[in-house]
């Protein structure tokens, strides 16, 4: 393994790019052009580095790898360390973050025409925070990244967003902030129990937390992660944020920010508070089932494309939370794959919506129809991602959903059945959307002159499509690194519940 601080490089290199952009001076045209190119090259290099990470990663080990550790603040026993490291669960989220940042920057190339410099800086800062979240192995460090994400996202929605952007930006910021401050208190409580803010230490000494304490800590973390996921009934910030955010912002929101909640559950709630997790599983199952069915029905009734995709995201994330708390190895692996797959597919769907918005400046479904006659390439791309979203075998969506259902079936047949109903609903609303936008006859005059995808747009979709197929046809490349870490987490959780004499929830 390499000994150079590759995680720090991946995390902080975007900031270097942002600093360069900050220093660009001159004519507005030249500034915008230079800002775009610097951002593109920075994100390309960062992505390449993260691929190196994947190549060098040892998939057989459940230990944290590429570990970096240094003392940051030491005082009277209160030590905050700069501790970075990744395991199989975080590895792919880092890759997803760097890839989607790159794609967002390319997708915003022409669309963002004013304050380009600020836009690119915001995205690079956002990238640093996102990657940092998945690398951090110290609670305070994690929290700094976790909450830091809010600032650039708030600005992205507020400055480059749509009509009602201010309301949405505030709602997004305050909603998520409220959740995360409660987590901060829980982190401090953990410190007093373990004497350190080190995540790895807390993971290995979960027995320090009594059942009563676990319940409180679990709830505090839940407050933060449930809002991020978002779970029903704290999901209402998401449709607003998505509709108003610029396309690139939606891509990051759906692709990465929604995954923070799921990642948090897998990383913290399961291994650290196993008894509370066991105790609260029925709650999660109930909320997930409601989320999956209710938001699917809501999605069916939407007249705005972006809102529809946003609600479908909530439904898909309901699947994820269900899988995570089924607490079987298959289901948790499925949940991680489902998150990755959803990161790619929803990002692509938002980009599809963005393509149309770019041409007609509306998200309204009724304004379109018959696009297949003018935009055949676009129709093909959108068909591919629509099918991936509904989980057609051969696409990434299938692998995740299948593993989740498989794992959940062993634990709760009812839950599994309810979720399977939603699969049917998801096919309905996605295909219904597709029919209304792409098929039927082309009636509107302004659609006659609409242009098909440009080479730049094709270049955005091709890598996403290839990844979706790769993940669907040969998921082992992704599952292998994930499996070791997930098995380790499940084993930890089960050992704790067995030791406490709790019956593991499973079919006889």
């Amino acid at each position, binding site marked *: 393994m390499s000994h150079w601080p590759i995680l720090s490089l991946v995390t902080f290199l975007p900031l270097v790019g942002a600093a360069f952009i900050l220093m660009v001076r001159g004519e507005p045209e030249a500034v915008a052009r230079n800002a775009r190119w610097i951002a593109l090259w920075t994100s390309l290099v960062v992505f390449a580095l993260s691929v190196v990470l994947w190549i060098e990663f040892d998939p057989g080990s459940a230990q944290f790898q590429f570990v970096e550790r240094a003392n940051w603040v030491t005082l009277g026993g209160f030590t905050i360390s700069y501790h970075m490291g990744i395991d199989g669960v975080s590895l792919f989220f880092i890759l997803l973050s760097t890839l989607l940042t790159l794609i967002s920057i390319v997708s915003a190339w022409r669309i963002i025409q004013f304050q380009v410099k600020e836009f690119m800086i915001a995205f690079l800062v956002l990238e640093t925070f996102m990657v940092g979240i998945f690398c951090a192995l110290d609670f305070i460090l994690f929290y700094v990244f976790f909450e830091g994400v809010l600032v650039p996202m708030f600005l992205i929605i507020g400055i480059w967003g749509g009509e009602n952007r201010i309301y949405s930006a505030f709602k997004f910021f305050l909603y998520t902030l409220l959740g995360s401050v409660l987590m901060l208190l829980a982190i401090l*409580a953990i410190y007093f129990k373990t004497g350190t803010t080190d995540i790895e230490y807390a993971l290995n000494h979960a027995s320090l937390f009594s059942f009563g304490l676990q319940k409180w800590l679990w709830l505090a973390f839940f407050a933060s992660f449930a809002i991020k996921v978002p779970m029903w009934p704290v999901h209402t910030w998401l449709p607003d944020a998505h509709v108003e955010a610029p396309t690139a912002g939606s891509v990051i929101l759906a692709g990465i920010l929604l995954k923070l909640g799921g990642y948090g559950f897998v990383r913290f709630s399961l291994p650290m508070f196993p008894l509370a997790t066991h105790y609260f599983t029925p709650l999660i199952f109930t909320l997930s089932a409601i989320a999956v069915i209710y938001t699917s029905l809501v999605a069916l009734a939407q007249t705005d494309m972006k809102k529809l995709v946003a609600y479908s995201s909530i439904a898909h994330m309901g699947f994820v939370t269900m899988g995570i708390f089924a607490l079987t190895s298959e289901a948790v692996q499925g949940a991680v794959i489902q998150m990755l797959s959803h990161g790619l597919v929803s990002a692509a769907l938002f980009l599809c919506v963005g393509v149309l918005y770019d041409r007609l400046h509306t998200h309204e479904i009724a304004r379109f129809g018959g696009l297949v006659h003018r935009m055949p390439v676009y129709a093909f791309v959108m068909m591919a991602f629509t099918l991936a979203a509904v989980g057609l075998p051969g696409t990434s969506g299938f692998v995740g959903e299948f593993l989740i259902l498989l794992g959940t079936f062993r634990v709760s047949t009812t839950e599994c059945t309810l979720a399977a109903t939603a699969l049917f609903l998801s096919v309905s609303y996605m295909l219904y959307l597709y029919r209304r936008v792409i098929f039927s006859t082309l009636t509107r005059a302004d659609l006659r002159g609409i242009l098909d995808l440009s080479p730049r747009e094709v270049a955005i979709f091709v890598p996403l499509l290839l990844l979706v197929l790769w993940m669907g046809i040969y998921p082992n490349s992704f599952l292998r690194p994930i499996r070791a870490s997930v098995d380790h987490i499940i084993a930890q959780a089960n050992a704790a519940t067995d030791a406490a004499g709790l019956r593991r929830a499973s079919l006889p």
Partner: protein
Amino acid sequence: MPYLTPPDLSAALPEILLAGAAMALLIFGALRGERATRSVSWLAVLSLIIVLAVVLLRGGERRLGFYGMIVSDAFAVFVDTLVLVGSGVTILMAMSYNEEQRIARFEFPVLLLLATTGMMVMISANDLIALYVGLELQNLALYVVASFDRDSARSSEAGLKYFVLGGLSSGMLLYGLSLIYGFAGTTAFADLARLLAANGAAISPGLIIGLVFVVAGLAFKISAVPFHMWTPDVYEGAPTPVSMFFAIAPKMAALALFIRVMIAPFGPLVGDWRQVVVFLSIASMILGSVAAIAQPNIKRLMAYSSIGHVGYLLIGVAAGTAEGIRGTLVYLAIYLFMNVGAWGVILCMRREGRMLEQIADLAGLSRTRPALALALGIFLFALAGIPPTAGFFAKLYIFFAAIDANLTGLAVIGVVTSVVGAFYYLRVVKVMYFDEPAGALDVPIAAELKGILFVTAVVTLFFFLLPGPVIGGAAAAASSLFAR
């Protein structure tokens, strides 16, 4: 008999130096007249720097002076440093402001030096008498400074309001002090502490009533709810550099005094006064976060913000532990930087020579003046406590202490109000970044103001890179209070 030996002046050396400098500058200014304003200002800053150097070089070793009336320890060094920096920065920032507003007079820096002397006495007070003398020296200078723009009705009103309410609170404080003296028979902190520790539960109620009066009087000075009413009016009316000064130095000194009184002599009564402090803290946090939501005037907004911050500062005091005091001191240091920065930007809000105070006047600042908008953005996110700015670490240490002292409820209220408070800071960010430009601000910013803004913005944003010195200093200061 100790009274036969000459008093040991070394403990009060910085205070004496500063008082001497103030007198010398007063004579210098009186002889040279108004022409000397700029040189008096620079000389005042120079003397503050010299005193700061003396304070820092002398170190935190515990010294008693004037027969135990004055104590100099690590705690005093830490807060003295903050207060001296705050005063120096205020004099620097007021120079060009006063000239533009045609209120430049050489008395201004002299008065600030006198007020600073009073604050340093407060911080080092080890006796009820010394406490009161320091407090009044500070107050009298501040009453004048508040109405320094004497031709403006608003400024005069602010000064008068501050004077009347300040006099009232001083009266309450004095009444409390005399009750304490009456029931304890001593004014020395050391004797009080010995007495209270020895008597245990059998403390006379008169003493408790006296303590409550002292707390009320000091709560006025730090503008904790429900003794905060003067704050928004005075901040709005006073000249802007003076408002900034009120938001930092006197508050820090009064809070230091509060801490010293509560911990040193009344430490054994922590169970009795904690509930009062918890109440003050909760009330301040709630009012500070809710009252500013619809505030259109940025100076009043900052006043409410400072009330809210006092609530957080008091959490550390309520904990009553070394960790709590450390948290409060870290918070104070970071608060200094955030506030100086934010007020510095307010000082730049000038259009065609007229000062602006409405938040709406900042509309579109990110496009007309990106650097200034970025700086204010950093300060506002810091005030809201969003990582990775310094403001987050301030709150972190405070909540850390609260959970350590089993004040979880207080911590939960603290984080919830911080979310509510984030709303109005974000509102200013929204005006700057999301709204269309309404008109440009005047371009030239005085060089010293530019420098201060740059330094405070860098410190606020990059505090996380090197937090050691501040936190280490605060920890040493806090433990010096508890050392017996």
